[in-house]
């Protein structure tokens, strides 16, 4: 019996160690190994001069992963109670934090950011007694200039389970931070960096006993924007001073590089770097004036007369008229029984195209709208508007930019038949074309789109691809990639057409009787500008101004719109002038000196 027992034990030993030894060796190896993900610091975002707009701050935060809490209800309650007493939170408060933090299964809930040293060490020493809770060293975005360029910079946030299924986010893990809006989103793959890992040997109590190996995290590359922080600040300040919902876009006429682009009201993106409840997030986004909306590239409005250069291009290039064609502006026009008037009841007498743009004769353009053909999805004005990039997404490197709308007979008739829009209460008629010719009615254009269209006029026909990203620079300062998107298309506009339209816009800004002469007449650099005053249902007029400068050697285009701003020259034009003054450095300083010198060197022509 003794022999049998000894033999049995020896056999078992043989089977465990010799026959299945490899299996158990593998089990034992995995046992004490903990893989810790090391988050990389996210790349910084800088303006075109190298000024830091966004960098990172390291915070130690106390995170709770609800799925790792003890499975027993009583233990879970006990642990939350202990955590609560450490943090000075009631259990109800912790519960609501867990419930109200927008999160997904398995995602951490930040209970406290910036834990103090006492709590930090206590938690590190007693981590075994708090399963599911951990101190994490994380990077949080730090916005150097408060709300400056908030809409362009965008936001970061945890990658969502849905996003994790996309190929671009294949290497990420739940809880990783990615760009969720603005350039943070567009250039995420450069900014994000690569997570590293540390294999740590831990004992049965979870205490680290040594490092087995590590793959260092690779910091994200930095992003140099095309924005000029100084110009941006001046533009945003001008909007803020006006105090009405408004937006502007200032762009290099030739390259599409956005020099400044702002929207008011705006918000402080650092709000999103702190943990909040869902109710707090909702309240933040739903403040009056919709501060989260970037009106510069998402706000579509009728442009009023600022649309006239597009109508003029269509009329001249499609030979509806010649530049010398004269219409007698009697102050009103009868179109099939409906009489339409100039704004303010003015009558300009016989005018040619150049003068019609200068004084912004509605009757002249009503005539063009009346004579331009439109059917189905096309029309002479509509097709040119599309060539100018209106009614389509601007291809800018900001994810939320909107397409606006250029109404066609097909579009209007479809919406009318669907009964989905109470304002579209009849099918298309020629009156809609007349409205479109002066930028009224259903047309919707964003300030960015108007700037882009004017840029095409200014640069001789290239419809540029607007962009705020300038180049990607690695941590050593080497440029990894330059962002120079090619123009979307080239418009074939004759020099004659271009000169007539730009000349009219120059006269509008520079000659007595021009629509923006009151604001721009005294501007030392010649410009070509067009006001817009759009009637909007149920509120005061939308104020617009689009301007190309210098007139004879275009560098910069600025488009401004102000909701309820009244006449274009009243609200939008002064803001545009402020931006141009800064750009050409007319108030001292050095940033704009180069631009001003270049403008003067070209001389009047």
């Amino acid at each position, binding site marked *: 019996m003794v022999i049998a027992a000894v033999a049995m034990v020896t056999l078992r030993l043989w089977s465990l160690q010799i026959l299945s030894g490899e299996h158990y060796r593998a089990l034992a190896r995995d046992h*004490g190994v903990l893989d810790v993900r090391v988050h990389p610091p996210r790349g910084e975002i800088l303006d075109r001069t190298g000024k830091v707009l966004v960098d990172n701050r390291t915070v130690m935060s106390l995170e709770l992963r609800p799925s790792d809490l003890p499975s027993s209800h009583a233990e879970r309650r006990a642990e939350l109670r202990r955590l609560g007493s450490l943090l000075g939170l009631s259990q109800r408060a912790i519960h609501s934090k867990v419930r109200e933090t927008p999160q997904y299964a398995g995602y951490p809930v930040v209970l406290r950011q910036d834990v103090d040293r006492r709590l930090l060490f206590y938690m590190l020493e007693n981590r075994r007694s708090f399963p599911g809770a951990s101190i994490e060293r994380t990077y949080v975005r730090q916005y150097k200039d408060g709300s400056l360029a908030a809409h362009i910079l965008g936001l970061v946030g945890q990658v969502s389970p849905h996003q994790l299924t996309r190929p671009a986010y294949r290497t990420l893990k739940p809880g990783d931070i990615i760009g969720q809006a603005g350039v943070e989103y567009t250039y995420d793959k450069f900014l994000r960096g690569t997570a590293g890992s540390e294999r740590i040997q831990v004992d049965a109590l979870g205490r680290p006993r040594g490092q087995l190996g590590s793959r260092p995290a690779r910091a994200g590359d930095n992003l140099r924007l095309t924005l000029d922080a100084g110009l941006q600040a001046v533009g945003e300040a001008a909007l803020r001073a006006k105090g009405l919902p408004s937006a502007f876009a200032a762009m290099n006429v030739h390259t599409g590089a956005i020099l400044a682009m702002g929207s008011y009201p705006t918000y402080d993106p650092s709000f999103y770097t702190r943990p909040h409840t869902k109710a707090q997030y909702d309240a933040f986004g739903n403040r009056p004036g919709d501060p989260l909306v970037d009106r510069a590239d998402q706000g579509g409005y009728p442009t009023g007369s600022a649309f006239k250069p597009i109508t003029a291009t269509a009329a001249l290039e499609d030979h509806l008229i010649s530049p010398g064609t004269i219409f007698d502006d009697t102050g009103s026009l009868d179109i099939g029984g409906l009489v339409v008037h100039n704004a303010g009841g003015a009558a300009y007498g016989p005018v040619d195209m150049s003068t019609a743009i200068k004084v912004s004769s509605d009757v002249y353009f009503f005539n063009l709208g009346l004579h331009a053909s439109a059917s189905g999805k096309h029309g002479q004005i509509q097709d040119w508007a599309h060539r100018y990039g209106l009614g389509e997404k601007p291809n800018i490197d900001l994810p939320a930019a909107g397409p606006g709308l250029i109404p066609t007979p097909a579009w209007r008739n479809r919406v009318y038949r669907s009964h989905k829009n109470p304002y579209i209460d009849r099918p298309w008629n020629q009156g809609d074309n007349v409205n479109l010719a002066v930028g009224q009615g259903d047309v919707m254009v964003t300030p960015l789109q108007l700037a882009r269209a004017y840029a095409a006029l200014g640069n001789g026909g290239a419809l540029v691809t607007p962009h705020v990203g300038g180049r990607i620079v690695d941590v050593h300062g080497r440029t990894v990639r330059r962002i120079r998107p090619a123009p979307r298309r080239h418009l074939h506009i004759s020099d004659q057409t271009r000169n007539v339209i730009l000349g009219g816009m120059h006269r509008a800004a520079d000659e007595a009787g021009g629509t923006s002469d009151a604001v721009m007449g005294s501007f030392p650099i010649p410009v070509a500008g067009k006001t817009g005053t759009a009637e909007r249902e149920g509120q005061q007029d939308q104020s617009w101004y689009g301007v190309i400068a210098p007139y004879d050697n275009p560098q910069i285009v600025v488009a401004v719109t102000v909701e309820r701003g009244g006449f274009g020259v009243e609200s939008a034009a002064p803001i545009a002038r402020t931006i141009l003054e800064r750009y050409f450095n007319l108030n001292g300083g050095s940033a704009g000196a180069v631009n001003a010198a270049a403008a003067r060197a070209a001389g009047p022509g």
Partner: protein
Amino acid sequence: MEAAKPSLTIAPRRPLAERLGLTGVDGVMLGASVGLIAFSVFTLATSTRDEIAGRPMYFVERQALYAAAGIVLMIAISRIDYTRLRDLRMTIYAAMVGSIALVLLVGTAVRGSNRWINLPFFQFEPSELAKVLLCVSLAAFVYERVRRPFGLRQTVTLLGLGLAPAALVFLQPDLGTGIVLVAVALTILFVSGIPWQHFAAIGAVAALIAGGVYAAGSAAGVSFLHGYQQDRLTAFLHPSDDPSDASYQVNQAVIAVGSGEEVGRGSEATQTELLFLPERHTDFIYAVIGERFGFLGAAFVIFLYAILFWRAIRVMRASSSYYGTLIAAGVVAMLVFQVIINVGMNLGLMPVTGITLPLMSYGGSSVLGTFLALGILQSIHAQSRRD
């Protein structure tokens, strides 16, 4: 011719064994036991450095001290005539039962079990000593009784004497030692030549009572096996939930032993080093050996135990006295049961019962108790050679 000159004669050198008092000692058994305790000290030296912070040699020093004391005790015992213990049977038996009872009254509870008495120098675990004392005293009782006419009454009395200490130990509760005591008692009674019909009758009654209790308990809603099985299952599915759970221990032990493969993992022995294996200097020391030294080391230990068993059984069979045979049978049962149950537990063959591995597990009571038993075996060996 120098012997003719007494003045120049140097006293003849006595053999080393004689000078150490080792004459009549079974050298093979001595070698196996010393080899085992040496292996124990070596294993503790390699694997308990981090057990108590700042005192890497804590267990090693103590175990070495117990080993030295145990070997001296064994040799000392081997030189006395064990038959004299027969006259002390009542004292020994009373001391044994008394010490176990004392534990129940004043003992120190460790992990829910009341097994230790605090002495000035160390914690004394009476049940470790009780195994040996039971061998000596029960053998003496049997020796006294069998000279008289032998009836069922005698058998019941002896069975009562043999099982009483086990019952007390079960109350501590110490299931493992209780089982060993029962095994020792039954082995002695079995070897004594009590008619097998007595055992059959008693066994039948016991089975009836046990069955009755089980049936009544089940009817009353008390579950005997179910809760235990459920715990095992839960522990298997969530081994990290309760590191003190029995099946967690067995899992860790089996992983440790298996991962040792042929020659062991040496200092890479993560299972034992990283504290995944609980009780690794006592009940699970065999798993430590398995992981560190592989099949080579673990089989070598089994080999040493096999030699120990072989020599112990040889002493039992060669004993010139009936009393010696009975004691030796008890000691053999005690050693074999402990080794097989402990090693079986380490290899995942037996449930966890908290039995120490003789001469291998750390602990003064266990080491001294085992050496005491081996000393008595050596004494029996010496006596039978003398006769």
